[in-house]
């Protein structure tokens, strides 16, 4: 690790820590840093202590976990597809996971067990990945991977729309719709505990791809000639993304564009090396998600603005600007 990368990790870790503290302090009842601290180290039965432990701790923890998962997945996919426009949504993982969770609401199973939603989300993401491999083949080019991803994504969205359409009650339809908007409100530690192991497994798979992704920036032939097994690299990334994103969607709903924005902003800071981008994108994703979730709480009075709505409002123009910038460069 060069000293510059070390400094970047330090800065991002500091940002995540600072934002996490702010996240504990922000909400309908503003808390001081001191009362947050005492609630965490010396829990008692006071209201502020309960708010910190029961409401703000899971919310903050999930923002970090989900943000890290999305940032890392985006960085890995951009490296694999050698395309700065790639993100978890593009291989159909997000929308298929969302469809899985929508089915749970459709059948009214969400209340039956806490494990149902994550299981459905990950199953959806896994199915998408399986279908992706079947459609694009084992030696998929970036283009065929993207096209297959778009097809899967559209189909999953259509099925989700069908579920909303056929929902037995207006309440169920509303529940699905709100879930799809993405939020970290009203989650419990049980949500975090259920999602964390799958996310961690996904992270390990994705972080093992650093050197392969760096070599891949010279093209597939050169990467192979450097000893990279492309089949294994693709499998690890697609599976890693399915685990990390599937688990994320199942606890937070669909939160888009984090996987697009974070790697793009951090790329220059790591010398554009797709391998080195992985670790910093985790921290960057966590920081961005914490910041967005704090903004959501500051803006909201009465009806809370959904986190996924905020990231999309920021992300979509960002995507467009990126596209224009790329076109100008190639034109």
């Amino acid at each position, binding site marked *: 690790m060069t000293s510059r990368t070390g400094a970047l990790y330090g800065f991002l870790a500091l940002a995540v820590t600072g934002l996490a503290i702010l996240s504990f302090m922000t909400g309908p009842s503003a808390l001081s840093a001191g009362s947050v601290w005492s609630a965490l180290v010396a829990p008692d039965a006071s209201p502020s202590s309960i708010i910190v432990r029961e409401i703000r701790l899971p919310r903050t923890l999930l923002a970090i976990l989900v943000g890290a998962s999305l940032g890392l997945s985006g960085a890995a996919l951009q490296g694999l597809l050698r395309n700065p426009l790639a993100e978890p949504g593009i291989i159909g993982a997000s929308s298929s996971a969302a469809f899985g969770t929508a089915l749970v609401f459709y059948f009214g199973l969400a209340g039956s067990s806490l494990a149902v939603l994550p299981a459905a989300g990950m199953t959806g993401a896994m199915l998408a990945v399986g279908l992706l491999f079947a459609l694009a083949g084992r030696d998929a080019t970036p283009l065929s991977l993207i096209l297959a991803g778009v097809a899967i994504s559209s189909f999953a969205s259509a099925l989700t729309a069908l579920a909303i359409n056929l929902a037995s009650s207006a309440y169920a339809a509303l529940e699905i719709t709100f879930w799809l908007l993405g939020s970290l409100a009203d989650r419990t530690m049980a949500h975090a505990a259920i999602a964390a192991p799958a996310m961690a497994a996904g992270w390990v798979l994705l972080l093992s791809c650093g*050197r392969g992704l*760096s070599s891949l920036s010279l093209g597939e032939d050169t990467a192979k000639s450097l000893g990279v097994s492309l089949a294994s690299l693709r499998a690890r990334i697609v599976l890693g993304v399915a685990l990390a994103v599937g688990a994320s969607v199942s606890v937070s709903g669909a939160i888009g564009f984090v996987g697009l924005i974070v790697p793009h902003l951090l790329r220059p800071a790591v010398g554009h090396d797709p391998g080195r981008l992985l670790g910093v994108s985790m921290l960057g994703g966590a920081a961005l998600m914490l910041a967005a979730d704090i903004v959501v709480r500051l803006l909201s009075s009465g009806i809370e603005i959904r986190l996924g709505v905020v990231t999309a409002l920021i992300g979509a123009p960002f995507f467009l600007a990126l596209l224009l910038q790329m076109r100008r460069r190639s034109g």
Partner: protein
Amino acid sequence: MSRLEARNLHIRLGGRAVLSDLSFQLGTGELAGLLGPNASGKTTLLRALAALTEPERGEIALDGARVASLAPRDRARRIAYLEQGAASQWPVTVQRLVALGRSPHLAPWERAGESDRAAVADAMARCDVGHLAARPATELSGGEAARVMLARALATGAEILLADEPVSHLDPYHQFSVMKVIRDHADRGGAALVALHDLTLAARFCDRVLLLHEGGIAANGTPDDILTPEMIARVFSVDASLTRQDGLLHVVQRGIVGRADDGPGGGV
């Protein structure tokens, strides 16, 4: 001593036989030129030797061991492949790009060590790209990029270098300097097989040339023996005259076979 050996190689791509029954050997210290018209199978042969494409039949051996049975990283430490027109997708620095050549030497979570840094510095010095170290790899001139990519291939420390048209689109100075580096690699006990289009350049630098024609070897031997007007006419369909000056072979193309009057503007 023979290092890399191809035996009865048959390769089909998209249903078309690209190479049929091709056999040859590459020995230590040898720089062999791979010559032949477009679509004669040069790139396919180099890719097969680098285990990037699978032969339908036949075998490729490195020091007697089947290349296909080597672990990818073991193979990558011993055979370097320089792709034609290789370029970086991202604007990484030249230093970091050349350092990618060390990846076959590193376990997935291992960091580059002193020997890796020394190999990178040595490869950069040999290719004279040290002054470019901090430049983005996507903003190099054609000549600079060619030398940087060659340095990347040499940084692997592999004995065998397979280079696909490393001097195409380069000015005479860079053609010469790139070929000198490859010659030097062979002279240090390595071996190189280099696809070329410039017959004079091949004659100047190569110990041996391999003439590919329609997926087979039309001739295999020293440039002096192989590069004759008859052979050039048969393989390249050009009418060439060969002259010798200061012991160096010069190939001058006078026209297309059967149409010797075709000069500039003569059309094809």
